[in-house]
């Protein structure tokens, strides 16, 4: 007798699908002409991207004096956006590595798109620190290699350099993990392709995959190795991002809870972004039977969990700032809550701590409208969080004569909008030309988690019996 999933669990594939149905449903959109909606979205994204490119060109030419940063607030918009995008990039790896270890089968419905999103989000994030260097063509100076600059090496004790290593490792491993998973599916598309260019294109990308037992065996060992490598990476990237702040002695930045709390916050915002994208994707590509309400429910639970962890961390920080008895620490937090940027602090609290608690209600957790709405709210909240940490901790330093405020210039805003353009351009291309759901992996869990009339009958029998017994 083999493993049998309890009928009490909600099925992960609806509609009594066969293997063939799975392939057809997921890959058909690749062969068709994109819908009008896709063209509109793509056009808008490219336009945003181009505007971003314009802003970047403008400030690279005139210098980053065109940003809103000033002498007191040397880090503001760019680092806020960097941390925000990097955080979003956490969900993919969490889904592919950690949820794999916890044997969460629902991950198969969303892992492909989440991993793609991770890669695009990390790209968007990387743009900010690189361009903050000003003379970007000198960017390679951050790499430690024997050089002709004399004794000038990157500063190995600086967490900013650790970021370079952490993020580049994260990006490469995520990319490899995502691509290895794609290979069997790309081969499926190659085999079904009718047009020559498609056969050539997907043929080249599939690395000669034939689906032989040997290929599968190697594929599985590689996946395992990459999952093993990815697991610590889920923690390490945002941990090191948190070190950028926490190793300092700036009140509001130097606090020991930062590493785990940043990781929780990153997963929180990452899942919110996955929800936003998945709700759109399942609708546009008609994948409601694969990305089901049960998937949405599970992701909302993770949002509530991580949101609550973040909430505990906020309160711990606030409490400890008072408890520490350190004057500057106390001021930093009072200034956050009651100073000129109070709205960003309370916005953060409302969006990140209060709003996910609504998901204790099953009704809201399985409501498309509320999920979509709250996923946006959470992402706004997580942007506020970084803004609060970065700007409000800096804008009033030890010397009141240098206290200052920050407001973004049109260049700052354009740069940020441009990264949205980049993100959605890449995601839309991915959604059009690649399977957004892992076909092979869905087939792997179809027999145990797919819905069938027999399963429905079994569930009904269990519930009827329970109702009868418990009523008595």
């Amino acid at each position: 007798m083999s493993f049998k999933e309890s009928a009490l669990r909600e099925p992960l594939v609806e509609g009594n699908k066969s293997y063939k149905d799975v392939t057809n449903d997921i890959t058909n959109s690749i062969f068709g002409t994109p819908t009008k909606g896709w063209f509109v979205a793509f056009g808008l994204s490219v336009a945003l991207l181009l505007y971003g490119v314009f802003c970047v060109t403008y400030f690279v030419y005139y210098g980053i004096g065109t940003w809103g940063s000033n002498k007191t607030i040397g880090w503001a918009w760019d680092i806020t956006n960097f941390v925000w995008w990097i955080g979003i990039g956490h969900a993919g790896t969490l889904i592919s590595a950690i949820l794999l270890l916890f044997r969460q089968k629902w991950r198969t419905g969303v892992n492909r798109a989440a991993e793609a999103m991770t890669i695009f989000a990390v790209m968007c994030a990387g743009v900010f620190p690189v361009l903050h260097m000003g003379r970007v063509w000198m960017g390679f100076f951050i790499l430690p290699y024997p050089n002709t600059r004399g004794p000038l090496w990157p500063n190995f004790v600086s967490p900013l350099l650790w970021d370079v290593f952490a993020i580049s490792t994260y990006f490469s491993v995520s990319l490899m993990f995502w691509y290895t998973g794609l290979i069997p599916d790309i081969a499926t598309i190659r085999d079904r392709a009718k047009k020559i260019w498609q056969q050539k294109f997907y043929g080249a990308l599939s690395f000669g995959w034939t689906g032989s037992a040997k290929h599968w065996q190697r594929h599985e060992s590689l996946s395992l190795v990459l999952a093993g490598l990815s697991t610590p990476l889920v923690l390490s990237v945002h941990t090191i991002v948190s070190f950028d702040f926490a190793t300092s002695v700036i009140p509001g930045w130097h606090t020991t809870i930062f590493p785990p709390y940043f990781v929780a916050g990153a997963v929180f915002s990452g899942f919110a972004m996955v929800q936003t994208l998945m709700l759109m994707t399942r609708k546009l590509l008609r994948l409601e039977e694969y990305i089901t309400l049960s998937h949405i429910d599970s992701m909302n639970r993770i949002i509530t969990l991580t949101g609550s962890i973040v909430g505990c961390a906020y309160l711990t920080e606030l409490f400890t700032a008072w408890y520490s008895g350190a004057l500057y620490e106390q001021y930093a937090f009072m200034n956050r809550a009651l100073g000129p940027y109070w709205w960003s602090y309370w916005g953060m609290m409302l969006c990140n701590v209060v709003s996910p608690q609504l998901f204790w209600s099953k009704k809201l957790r399985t409501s498309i409208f509320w999920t979509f709405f709250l996923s946006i709210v959470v992402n706004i909240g997580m942007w506020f969080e970084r803004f609060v940490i970065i700007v409000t901790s800096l804008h009033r330093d030890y010397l009141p004569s240098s206290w200052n405020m920050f407001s973004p210039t049109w260049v700052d805003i354009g740069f940020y909008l441009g990264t949205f353009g980049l993100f959605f351009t890449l995601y839309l291309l991915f959604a059009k030309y690649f399977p957004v759901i892992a076909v092979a992996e869905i087939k792997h869990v179809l027999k145990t988690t797919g819905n069938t009339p027999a399963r429905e009958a079994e569930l009904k029998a269990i519930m009827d019996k329970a109702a009868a017994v418990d009523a008595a």
Partner: protein
Amino acid sequence: MGHHNTEVDLNERFEFPAKLKNIAFGLMGVGLLAFLAGVFISHDSTRTLAVMLQNGLFFMLITLISTFFIAIHYMANGGYMVALKRIPEAISQTMPIIALFVFGLIAYIILGKRNDIFIWLNIPAIKNAEARELLEGKTGYLNVPFFIVRIIAYLTVWSFGVMQYRKFSLQEDAAPAGSMKNHINSRLFSGFFLVFFAVTISTSSWDWLMSIDAKWYSTMYGWYCFVSALVSGISLMMLVIQYLRNQGHLKAVTDEHVHDLGKFMFAFSILWTYLWFSQYMLIWYSNNPEETVYFRQRYDHYKVLFYLNLLMNFVTPIFVLMKNTSKRNSRVLVFIASVIIIGHWVDYYQMIMPGTVGNNWHIGMQEIGLPIFFVGLIIWRTFSQLEKAPLIPKNHPYLQESLHHHV
């Protein structure tokens, strides 16, 4: 892979063997005598109170983790653990007993104004004006009435949770097959319990542990103490499971279940190290004397324990448990679970002692005696609770998943 559970007896019961019972009583007796002898010889009430605090808190928290384990599995709809659910259920029943001990002890310390344990209990006695002023600033939180309200709240609600899960579970056994009522109630209760637990597991460690070094603070502290207890609590479950399996009981719990618990031991050991490192590194890097004093004292005067802590709780588990086969090998698991429990006992020791007994610490009769007593107590209580109900919760809706748990 794995054996099939055709031979699983769903009504299997455990009988507390007389020999084990004698061992439990023997440990309690020997431990208590050694402790009393140590108390008598040392004549140092600070040391005795500190030892009692360390052991009371440590053993209470690691038995409480069993309830946390059950709660989190209800919340997350975990199916694989059903076959072993009676073990954490039984272990957790020790927690309310130890809670009484902890309550009595802390009440004694607080009402006796023992500022050798909690310096903030008698602020006017502090000579240094700056320190006095600093601690006066904390009296909004560190004051006797509020402290007592908090300890009563923590211990009552935790003990209530411990007993409530057990009650639901036994009711489920008694209910007719197919009933879902107790399962649903357990799930609903988990929401409430876990929220309370998440907040209080941090605040309680600020109260009972961090306030010993009252001038010092670290936002990470609560989570650090929690994970230390978490990994030890899971190791304790592992020890009980290994004993039962080696005695030929618990056929339903296969190598697969054991492997999963082994993975938890591995993962949470690394998580603990991650928190240890993050806290240490950030304090070291910023080099702020108000914060570094905590590690300075431990590194200068508790150097052996400072390193032992890392050796037992990080180096040993990561190297031993990394291999797949070691997570399925009974002897290795018993060894490593013991190392982890003793290691975290050392961790709690080095958290408490520097702020109480100071730099002049000893491991003597009382330090060894009291944990032996508690081990005896946990054995006696766990196995006599295990005896009271069948080893398998046969009406749990996810039982079949757990009986056919393959990887």
